[in-house]
């Protein structure tokens, strides 16, 4: 951040001192379009929603700013803010139908939107001080220019103003990316069904992304309107939307600063912090940052989950577990012989402790291992030995599935078998009542299937959940399932204990067919 601040200071001061007014205008335009690209980066890079209509949104933002500029005497910053908000409303309106389409269809619909808006603007033109709702007059003489901020009327001053506004928008984007919406967007981008299963409100966060992108683009439209003074439709061509997308792709679509992928990897492990409802120290925000959005915690005796934000508000509170499974009644964290080593140091060495219900303190001088202990509880640091149990349940879902990988690794770098274990871990970390496993062993070799079977067998015992397993591997089914039901062409043809069902003639016939002589 210091480097960025220094760079910003240089860019603020240097160009006006050494460049001509023409180049100052060029840099101003570059800054404005960088802001538009930022909005598209949020949509395409973070959420995976490619929009080819951002230039149309920019035109709308410019239109709104121009109209408000001529019709009101709002201070320029307020004008930008109102323009951004109104454009964000339009962005949400665009986003609503987009909830039903994605990928190529979304890109094409937004391209068509751009074309449609261009046609409307060709007919209505931009406001130029005229009367009526459209604010356009056909007269081309004596029309006022769209005003600039009072302290930045000149080109140099306006360049600096634009740069600062752009920097603030980048900060806004970074704040979003590094907080709850950013994690939700990453989850949605990776897999919508998985995000939905994990409790992410897909609708809310997609619309949030559309609104944020449109807000930034609207602000850019306002800055552009004041920069050029007069607006014309030829400034907003459809091919500019395509060029903009190319710019975003070239810049590295996952990073607002275009640094490319890999700088902020999503951890492999599910968020055990969800089990605890812990909050972090302000200086070390891992736990708060890593809580999955939409995660809830069940209050005792209630079916409705407590919203995550309420759990966060009870700083450090550990919500009681629901009454089920072998851990019913347990209200403690038990740590046994815990050892953590990294970077040549041993921050925790053979720690054994229990925390009873209520508020418990953990104190020690700097470097004693307190934060590391919290990181172990949250699953971000893997111990070399020992165990941690919360309310009788193994705290780390990854430990539950016995997957020995670095939690910071990206899922796509894992083998197929490891990924299946991660998927099972993700399914159970929220302590569901029912776990549905659809051919989890497909494509796995025998050894990994056996390990997976052992994990699946422990789910009811460990989490008190009902498991329904769909698979073609009969050895897996018979090793995991006490009872089995068989469907054939939509009809139930057998149900009962697994051993009986597998001996049923109808079942054998359904799988093997009948031999015709």
């Amino acid at each position, binding site marked *: 951040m210091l480097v960025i601040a220094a760079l910003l200071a240089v860019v603020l001061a240097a160009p006006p001192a050494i460049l001509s007014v023409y180049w100052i205008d060029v840099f101003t335009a570059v800054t404005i379009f960088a802001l538009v690209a930022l909005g598209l980066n949020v949509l395409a890079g973070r959420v995976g929603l490619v929009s080819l209509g951002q230039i149309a949104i920019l035109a709308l933002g410019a239109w709104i700013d121009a109209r408000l500029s001529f019709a009101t005497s709002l201070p320029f910053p307020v004008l930008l803010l109102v323009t951004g908000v109104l454009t964000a409303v339009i962005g949400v309106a665009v986003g609503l139908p987009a909830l039903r*389409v994605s*990928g190529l269809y979304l890109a094409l*619909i937004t391209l068509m939107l751009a*074309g449609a808006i261009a046609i409307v603007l060709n007919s209505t033109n931009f406001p130029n001080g005229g009367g009526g709702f459209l604010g356009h007059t056909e007269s081309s003489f004596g029309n006022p220019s769209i005003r600039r901020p009072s302290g930045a009327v000149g080109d140099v001053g306006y360049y600096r103003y634009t740069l600062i506004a752009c920097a603030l928008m980048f900060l806004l984007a970074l704040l979003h990316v590094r907080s709850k919406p950013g994690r939700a967007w990453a989850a949605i981008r990776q897999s919508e069904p998985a995000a939905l299963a994990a409790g*992410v*409100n*897909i609708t809310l966060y997609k619309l949030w992304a559309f609104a944020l992108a449109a807000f930034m683009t609207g602000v850019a439209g306002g800055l552009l309107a004041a920069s050029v003074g007069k607006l014309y439709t030829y400034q907003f061509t459809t091919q500019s939307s395509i060029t903009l997308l*190319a710019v975003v*792709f070239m810049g590295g679509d996952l990073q607002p600063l275009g640094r490319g992928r890999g700088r902020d990897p999503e951890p492999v492990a599910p968020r055990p912090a969800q089990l605890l409802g812990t909050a972090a120290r302000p200086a070390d925000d891992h736990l708060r940052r890593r809580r999955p959005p939409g995660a809830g915690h069940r209050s005792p005796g209630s079916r409705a*989950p407590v919203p995550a934000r309420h759990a966060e508000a009870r700083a450090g509170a550990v919500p009681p577990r629901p009454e089920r499974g072998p851990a019913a009644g347990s209200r403690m964290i038990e740590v046994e012989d815990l050892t953590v080593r990294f970077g040549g140091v041993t921050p925790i060495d053979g720690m054994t402790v229990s925390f009873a219900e209520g508020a418990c303190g953990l104190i020690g001088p700097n470097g004693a291992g307190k934060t590391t202990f919290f990181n172990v509880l949250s699953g971000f640091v893997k111990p070399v030995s020992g165990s941690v149990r919360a309310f009788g349940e193994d705290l780390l879902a990854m430990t539950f599935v016995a997957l020995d990988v670095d939690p910071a690794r990206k899922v796509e770098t894992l083998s197929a078998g490891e990924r299946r274990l991660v998927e099972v871990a993700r399914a159970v970390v929220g302590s569901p009542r029912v776990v549905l496993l659809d051919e989890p062993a497909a494509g796995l070799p025998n050894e990994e299937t056996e390990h997976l079977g052992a994990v699946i067998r422990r789910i009811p015992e460990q989490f008190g959940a009902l498991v329904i397993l769909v698979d073609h591997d009969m050895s897996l089914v018979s090793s995991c399932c006490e009872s089995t039901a068989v469907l054939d062409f939509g009809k139930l043809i057998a149900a009962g204990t697994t051993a009986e069902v597998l001996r049923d003639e109808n079942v054998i016939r359904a799988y093997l067919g009948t031999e015709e002589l």
Partner: protein
Amino acid sequence: MPLAYGVIFGPLLARRDPLVKAVGTLGLALILLGLMDWFWPPKSRSMFLPTSNWYYQLGLVRVTWTQIIGVLAGVLVAVVTGVFLRYTNLGTAMRALANDREISATLGVPVRKVEAMAWLGSGLLSGAAGLLLSDLVALDAVTLTFLVISSLAAALIARLRSLPITLGAGLVIGLVTALMTPILSISVYRDMTPFVLATLGLLWISRRRVVSVSRTAG
């Protein structure tokens, strides 16, 4: 040119998702637009086909042979393409490729040759359409290029799968656009027809898709 693009970039784009492929071809469009702008700077140009001299008078409407050829060619191309894809070896190979490139290659389909033929065929058809459109619309690179957006509307309504539906949707879009012309209050917006109908069509087709809403607090 499409053949060269398909031969060089087709295999590179083959394993990418449809959106990336689409953006790749949009990039080609931008390059070609830039080149055309360089070689032929913006200037009013026109192209007049001899068939536009011959026409029929239907009531108050003059229908030129160019327009008739355009409609007939559209129907003919849709029928011939449908027959080609269904009954010929090359057409079957193209459909197999569209379904699953990997399996097609495993089965012995010469994927690169088939892809090249697909690019060549689409290039030929696009060129012929451009020839007719330059007389009907304008001889302008940007106008003709982005006319494809309107035609995409028909393809989108057909979910990029059905030729008869694409043809029908195109005819309906053209009809609605033309019918709006004499209505003065909305005629300036008639060119929006493809976009509006495509958006409505897509939303209608996707109406049964569940909008993803989590029931937990977010």
